[in-house]
């Protein structure tokens, strides 16, 4: 049954996982996302739906457990925060290489290194350009509310299975720790044994006499064959770019200037828009929801409309590269960032916009 609750973003992810028929969660504690594992342990999902929850010995083990669970055709997920996600990159690359549908959540904190436990968006490059070794992409979803934290769990699994590709929810400590109202979806049953065999005929569910053994691997020693594997992957990513671009336009229709921001930064920019419009400055916001695939066409379109774009990020300028690439010189594109766990304030963002484009 649907249910309205006040929840932290992290808790919403955990509850959504149980409700969307997730088969297993494997994870290792790290701030600021430990509530996900804690919530799952309290909820005893094994009793509610049969979902497996296991605290692994490391992030390395977690992601490899996810690999194996996905290899069995199950809906499996893990979550971590930046340093832990760095540890998972090898396993993620293997998941991408073996074309395993699975869900990862990165509740980003400031880096590099052990960095800070405060929110950041400094893992944009890592998330959208592959992250581990080899040529691959993750489907990257960037929620900007607790409701989206909840909704993107189901969406992430759907897209992951549609494309046999890992999906990533890229969020940060602010949304993870923040509480908002969330409408939880009605529970759906986990796939039955039969459904799994139907949906994922490639999975290692045990070799019956009437089919060849299934093998999950990312290894191909023959270069000619490996090139074909790569071409197939690239074709898949191109399909995603064609079909799965998601974004939100906020007050863009009459905008003369544009913020481009995702996640927490997009929330901050919404307030900046209110402040700007109160002063008569027509500003809009393009909020990419999928960071891969990136809303390239929408950027280009808006670049032809506005006098300038400001990419507001909690990093030193990462998404701004994708914006510049796709604005194709049709308008100036600037970046404003805070790092190390500092979040910009709405009036600060507006001031930067005025300075960069209006000369205030």
């Amino acid at each position, binding site marked *: 049954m649907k249910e309205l609750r006040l929840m932290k973003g992290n808790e919403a992810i955990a509850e959504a996982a149980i409700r969307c028929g997730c088969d297993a969660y494997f994870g290792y504690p790290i701030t600021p996302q430990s509530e996900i594992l804690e919530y799952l342990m309290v909820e005893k999902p094994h009793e509610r739906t049969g979902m497996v929850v296991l605290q692994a010995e490391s992030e390395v083990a977690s992601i*490899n457990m996810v690999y194996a669970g996905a*290899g069995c055709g199950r809906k499996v997920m893990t979550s971590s925060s930046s340093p832990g996600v760095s540890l998972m990159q090898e396993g993620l690359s293997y998941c991408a290489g073996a074309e395993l549908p699975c869900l990862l959540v990165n509740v980003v904190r400031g880096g590099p290194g052990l960095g800070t436990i405060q929110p950041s968006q400094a893992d944009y490059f890592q998330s959208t350009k592959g992250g581990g070794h080899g040529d691959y992409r993750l489907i990257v979803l960037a929620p900007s509310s607790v409701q989206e934290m909840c909704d993107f769990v189901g969406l992430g699994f759907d897209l992951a299975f549609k494309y046999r590709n890992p999906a990533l929810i890229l969020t940060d400590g602010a949304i993870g720790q923040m509480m908002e109202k969330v409408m939880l979806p009605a529970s759906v049953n986990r796939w039955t044994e039969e459904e799994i065999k139907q949906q994922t005929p490639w999975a290692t569910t045990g*070799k019956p006499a009437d089919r060849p053994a*299934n093998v999950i*691997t990312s290894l191909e020693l023959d270069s000619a064959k490996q090139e074909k594997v790569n071409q197939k992957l690239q074709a898949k990513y191109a399909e995603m770019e064609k079909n799965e671009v998601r974004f939100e336009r906020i007050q863009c229709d009459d905008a003369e200037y544009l913020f481009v921001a995702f996640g927490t930064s997009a929330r901050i920019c919404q307030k900046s828009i209110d402040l700007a419009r109160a002063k008569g400055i027509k500003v809009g916001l393009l909020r990419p929801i999928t960071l891969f695939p990136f809303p390239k066409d929408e950027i280009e379109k808006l670049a032809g409309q506005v006098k300038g774009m400001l990419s507001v990020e909690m990093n030193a300028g990462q998404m701004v590269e994708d914006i510049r690439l796709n604005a194709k010189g049709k308008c100036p594109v600037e970046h404003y960032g805070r790092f190390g766990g500092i979040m910009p304030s709405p009036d600060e963002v507006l001031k930067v916009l005025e300075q960069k484009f209006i000369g205030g």
Partner: protein
Amino acid sequence: MAETIFDPNIIKDQNLVYKRTDHMKEKALSYCPGCGHGTAHRILMEVIEEMGIQEKTIGVSPVGCSVLAYDFMNVDMQGAAHGRAPALATAIKRLMPDKFVFTYQGDGDLAAIGTAETIHACNRGEHITIIFINNGIYGMTGGQMAPTTLPGMRSSTSPYGRDEATMGHPLRMTELVATLPGTCFVTRQAVHTPGNVRKAKRALRTAFELQTRKIGVSFVEIVSNCNSGWKMTPVKANTWMEENMFPYYPLGDIKVPEKID
């Protein structure tokens, strides 16, 4: 060696005394002649055939010489990243508790890069079988030192012999995991003589049967040779193994579960 040593005319059904199990795929093994992997693969697949559990078995192959084990073993298999096989096996067994799940790992995979996964899977008492092929060297990458390389033993990264003072001591993983309450059956075997092959196969059978009792990890080490890496003939390698490996890695059961009637 160019001389043909068999008469093709004798290949007749009625002459067949020793048959390849169809649980081994019809593919030539890529292992060096004289290597123990082929025998270990075969007895493992024979056990699965004899138990009639092909449809209920999921294997996990490692990185190392047996990285392509799934090309030879005719069961559903997953290839693990280097060292992570016990983590994979954990997830597979947790999600499909009625399946038989095994890992097949070498000494670098299990006792170096995958030490954490091995220890923790054993410590959690996952109901899986871990098969550990220990030949004291990294075969696939060209004969580098392994965690189980013997003192004084030469390899391409211990060219003057393993110096324990700077390179550490050979790791007895099997004794180590036997101390953990999560393991139920821990044994060390070999496959270089017919007698040892029979014993090793019995040990594998026991290990798989124990999975149904759900009392923890069954762990089978097989001390093996690496004539290529050791730079010896296969016969010499087996003798060297008996004289040098077995004293450090003595064969036999280290931990056995209580019998049930």
